[in-house]
């Protein structure tokens, strides 16, 4: 009987495609908007993700997210190093600097200062120049997206010079880096040099990057650091989560995306529901005939649900497929954030399930109450 339901469904091509379009539209909108939302959230933690070596980030107790810099005193670095369970700890500078370019124009840049000795936090994607060149005088490494932003259309060229805080900076390397939420160019240099490029402040230490002793539980060491120093110590994952939660709570981004996703859900349900209902009404005599011939209500229910699930699966597949195609085709556009984790697919699948369920409810009611005697009426 499910086979008959399938044949009935595909027999009416226009309605069939109409229902699929409704589900497809909803799935596409939900998956695409959710992926862009995830992409934006991913951007907010890009600098934490890019620094893979240290497992622990130590910061001021009131820091809420990665860009919320509340400088520590230099002695905090040594206090962290002295906590039992800490294998090593290094300073890390993060701040904004204003750069004056050769042409005289100014650019705001994200300035990252790496530990002079170990270069912990150095970029992984260096494709032009050598990391060791950072130790040369005035040396900086710039991210490729930032380079293209400042010198659009120009080939990568090492040795370009600009100034920060009236001090000379020379590009000795170009690296790939994850884009940031602020979209400013990223400049890597040594910690000792970064504090000179930055505007003068009494305290300049942004973070202490640390690692736990081998075999020690990282979260336990974080708690130990907090207990001993009074500073906030988070694992890399905890810091990413805290940063994302901050953006979720303190910005309107999630609400805006949720509204779009909800509208996609509503419109998809409306289109699919209306078309599915019309399809059912159009076939009501056939359903009546089947009931008259001895088809039970349970079988009729299974038939309608099978029809709904079938268009749901196809619509879901096409919708998320198109959303993924959208993300893939725009991957070269650095300004578009798009990240589609499996959770987006799961959420979209659940949403589509409810869409087809809601869409089929009216139809189910209609076919269940249809009087089999309808077939005797002219």
């Amino acid at each position, binding site marked *: 009987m499910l086979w008959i339901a399938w*044949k009935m469904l595909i*027999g009416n091509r226009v309605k069939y495609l109409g229902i699929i379009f409704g589900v497809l539209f909803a799935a596409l909108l939900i998956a695409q908007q959710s992926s862009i939302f995830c992409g934006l959230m991913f951007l907010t933690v890009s600098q934490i993700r890019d620094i893979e070596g240290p497992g622990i980030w130590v910061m001021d107790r009131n820091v809420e997210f990665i860009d919320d810099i509340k400088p520590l005193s230099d002695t905090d670095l040594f206090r962290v190093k002295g906590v039992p369970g800490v294998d090593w700890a290094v300073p890390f500078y993060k701040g904004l600097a204003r750069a004056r370019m050769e042409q005289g124009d100014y650019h705001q840049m994200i300035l990252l200062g790496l530990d002079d000795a170990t270069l912990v936090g150095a970029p992984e994607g260096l494709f032009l120049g050598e990391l060791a060149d950072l130790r040369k005088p005035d040396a900086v490494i710039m991210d490729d997206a930032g380079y293209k932003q400042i010198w659009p259309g120009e080939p990568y060229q090492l040795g370009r010079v600009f100034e920060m805080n009236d001090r000379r900076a020379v590009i000795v390397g170009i690296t790939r880096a994850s884009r940031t939420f602020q979209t400013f160019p990223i400049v890597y240099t040594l910690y000792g040099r970064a504090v000179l490029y930055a505007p003068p402040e009494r305290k300049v230490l942004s973070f202490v990057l640390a690692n736990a002793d081998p075999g020690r539980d990282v979260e336990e060491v974080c708690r130990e650091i907090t207990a001993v120093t009074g500073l906030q110590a988070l694992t890399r994952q905890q810091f990413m989560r805290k940063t994302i939660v901050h953006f979720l709570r303190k910005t309107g981004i999630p609400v805006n995306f949720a509204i779009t996703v909800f509208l996609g859900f509503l419109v998809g349900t409306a289109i699919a529901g209306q078309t599915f209902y019309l399809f059912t009404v159009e076939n009501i005599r056939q359903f009546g005939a089947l*009931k008259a011939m001895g088809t*039970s209500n349970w079988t009729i229910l299974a038939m309608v649900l099978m029809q709904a699930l079938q268009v749901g699966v196809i619509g879901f597949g096409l919708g998320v497929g198109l959303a993924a195609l959208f993300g893939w085709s725009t991957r070269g556009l650095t300004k578009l954030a798009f990240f589609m984790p499996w959770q987006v697919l799961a959420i979209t699948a659940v949403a589509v399930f409810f869409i087809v369920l809601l869409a089929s409810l009216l139809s189910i009611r209609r076919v269940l109450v249809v009087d089999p005697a309808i077939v005797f009426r002219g």
Partner: protein
Amino acid sequence: MPNPHSSQAEDDVAVRVRGVTKEFGVGGSLTKALRGVDLDVPYGELLMLVGPSGCGKTTLVSIVAGTLEPTDGEVVVLGKDLVAMSNGRKVRFRRENVGFVFQSYNLLPALSAAENAAVPLLIAGWRRSAAVEAASDVLDKLGLGDRLTNLPSELSGGQQQRVAIARAIVHEPRLLVCDEPTSALDAENGRITMELIARIAVQPDRAVIVVTHDSRVYSFADRIASMEDGRIESVSNGPDRAGTMPLL
């Protein structure tokens, strides 16, 4: 004790209807579709229900087929009391014992002729291939052996009605209910359709009830029950049989 209204021995009766009434609506909008109908249809008989529109023919045949509940009265079909039967059992009863030929055919437009004719077997749980094969045999007997894979839209009205007849008899039901089977057909196709019903469906262990307006096909009836205003006014032998029967 024998029923004083019955002219048949109970074992010979496929359909027995006693004092059946049917009311639709309530209060001021109450409509009495049937006003106490008594009727017997013996096995091996083709009974035609005739009468003007709105006289209650379709209501009566719907009740006999088990698709509509009477307001009052007794309905025994193939020895089963339909009034006392639960909905679930009635569905199963229809599936196993009743074949339907509808005025507007009610074929599934997306299924081929053979697949349409196989529907009752599929409802009964047959495998698709076996059901379609059995249905193809029936269609072949009805002269549609070369139209098995055609969709209803590719068939003439007469051919569609033959597919509907094949669908009605493919599971060998003991009661065949036909609602205006010739009304959408021309005279020739109407005659062919009735010939098929009379030849294939009427068997010693089966009964056929045909609701019709079409006086051209009265000659195929064993008996003709004339209805008027929710009652059976008279029951007569078909034109090929002499005399007029008593009401029951």
